[in-house]
């Protein structure tokens, strides 16, 4: 068990180092920071001087070590486009993205699990079949189109929900939240639902498949034979046993939600990290891109690690199996 944890930790650190190297090479080889700092007509001597001051004349490994040191303290330098600290820019945008992702995850779970159970229990009925067909559409529709259609229907035609921005926000220390005002909730409704659609369909299909599997199993048959009511058999026995894979997938999807919020934030002009990243790609603003890359990688690696470790704790069968497979992979 200990060797499994250590191996996973080492793998996580390795991934972060690889990503860090990618971010570092962005800095080093894409564009010259000096030409961004001085004018076109700066002399070669002045340029060389600046190079030396910034440590750009040192060997690459030394520079990389310095980069990692700075990155660990959250220092990614100044944004080329806005001239402000990248860390400050991101800190200011982080709450918007996290709130969007969390609300979306809640919507996906709150709708996905009941729908999955429902379609599994009534799988031969037309309403369940219709739901399954609709979920196929949900998987193949691109996120930005879902957003556009929702805007057309619910903001333009019906006028129920606003279609851009966060609305009224409340400042709680460094964290600005839109979840404490009714206006904020009205603003988050459409983007959160758009972001949730993909996860929702995925979750629903997963719960359905797991439920169908569980309903065929011996312990469910035995529970029925004991004369337990349907409600107890379905929710107490069948659903409970589907929850381990379901929770794993929803956990893993949280990272995906943060990444996909790039698209949703653009559609709804949501002032989060995703739209910051898109502006950085358009400009191109290397420090912001590199910082976002490292942050997203950190989120993904942390979630994957946590899920893997939890899995090993929850399901004893997987401990040995996982560890040996991890070596083979």
């Amino acid at each position, binding site marked *: 068990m200990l060797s499994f944890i250590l191996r996973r930790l080492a793998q996580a650190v390795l991934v972060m180092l690889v990503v860090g190297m990618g971010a570092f090479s962005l800095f080093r080889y894409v564009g010259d920071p000096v030409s961004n700092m001085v004018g076109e007509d700066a002399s070669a001597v002045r340029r060389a001087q600046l190079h030396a001051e910034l440590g750009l004349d040192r060997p690459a490994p030394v520079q990389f070590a310095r980069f990692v040191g700075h990155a660990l303290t959250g220092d990614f330098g100044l944004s080329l486009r806005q001239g402000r600290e990248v860390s400050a820019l991101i800190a200011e945008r982080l709450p918007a993205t996290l709130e969007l992702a969390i609300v979306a995850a809640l919507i996906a779970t709150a709708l996905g699990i009941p729908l999955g159970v429902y379609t599994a229990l009534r799988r031969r009925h037309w309403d369940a079949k219709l739901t399954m067909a609709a979920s196929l559409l949900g998987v193949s529709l691109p996120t930005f*189109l879902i957003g*556009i259609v929702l805007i057309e229907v619910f903001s*333009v035609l019906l006028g129920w929900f606003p279609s851009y921005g966060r609305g009224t926000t409340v400042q709680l220390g460094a964290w600005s939240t839109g979840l404490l005002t009714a206006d904020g909730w009205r603003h988050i409704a459409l983007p959160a639902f758009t972001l949730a659609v993909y996860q929702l369909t995925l979750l629903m299909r997963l719960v359905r498949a797991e439920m169908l599997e569980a309903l065929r199993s011996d312990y469910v048959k035995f529970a029925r034979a004991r004369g337990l009511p349907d409600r107890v058999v379905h929710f107490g026995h069948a659903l409970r046993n589907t929850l381990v894979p379901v929770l794993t997938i929803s956990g893993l999807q949280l990272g995906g939600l943060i990444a996909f919020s790039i698209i949703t934030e653009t*559609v709804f002009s949501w002032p989060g990290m995703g739209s910051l990243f898109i502006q950085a790609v358009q400009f191109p603003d*290397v420090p912001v891109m590199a910082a976002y890359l490292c942050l997203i990688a950190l989120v993904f690696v942390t979630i994957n690690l946590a899920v893997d470790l939890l899995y090993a704790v929850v399901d004893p069968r997987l401990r040995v199996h996982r560890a040996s497979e991890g070596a083979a992979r």
Partner: protein
Amino acid sequence: MKQHPAASPADATVAATPPPARWRRVFASDLWHDFVHSRTAVFATVVALLCLCGALFAPWLAPHNPADLATLDLADSHLPPAWLADGRATYPLGTDDQGRDILSALLYGARISLMVGLSSVVLSVLIGVSAGLLAGFAGGVVDAVLMRVCDVMLSFPPILIALLIDGIGRAIFPQARDVLAFAVLILALTLTDWVRYARTVRGSTLVERDKDYVQAARLVGVSSWRLLRRHVLPNVMGPVLVLATIQVGQAIVAEATLSYLGVGVPPTNPSLGTLIRIGNDFLYAGEWWITLFPGAALVLIAMSVNLLGDWLRDALNPRLR
């Protein structure tokens, strides 16, 4: 992308009889039988072919040439589709803010979308299959390094990687216009996708490598290159074919997403995604047709290709027979 299943490896094994005519062999195959008897597959193929033809023959089918500025008339801008009150028969699906015919823009846009999608899939199949064969056949350090790269890339959502490579491309070539912008975009999609093929092919190569026919060929003195190309390659292509069909849909959607985000194809050659982006601004003015028709076209293409891919996966899966 797949008009008839002539090139599939399943046919080669099924039709062991000496080939009388290539076409008869195709029609006699199990795959063809499956295909004709699957309503979904036939329907999806018809829709996909219609889209493909519409895109291919856009210059002859489209009522107007959206790139020809001389034919544009600002007086004709913001017209709704022909069946609505102010619509005109000359512009069946209406016009955009510059008086461009939506139907024509859509046909030309589908052309760009399909071109980018197909070429990125072809390129990633080439790179991915070569890398997979190499990793599976050579083993050792090459294998370890390639697979670690795959591990890292597969743990992030593809759209994020595509965006990042696109961003790097844009930073390296800040003045990228037209051809170069297309190259950056196709490269971004290619470099995102190849890992999937590499993974699959490596797995099947590892299996094939130790089979008797490969050992026998090696004993006879067949060179490694010829062994890979003539013996291993045909036997690992089945899953690649399925994956490639599904990836065509994915690549088209990914291209549309990047273009919608404003980091895809140059605005001078709008793809479906660009058209949706342009139309987005007019949604609030009630002019839904500018954005929703290209959107519908995108969904039609993506869904028909996806359905075809799903069918192909089931049809080539021996366990489901």
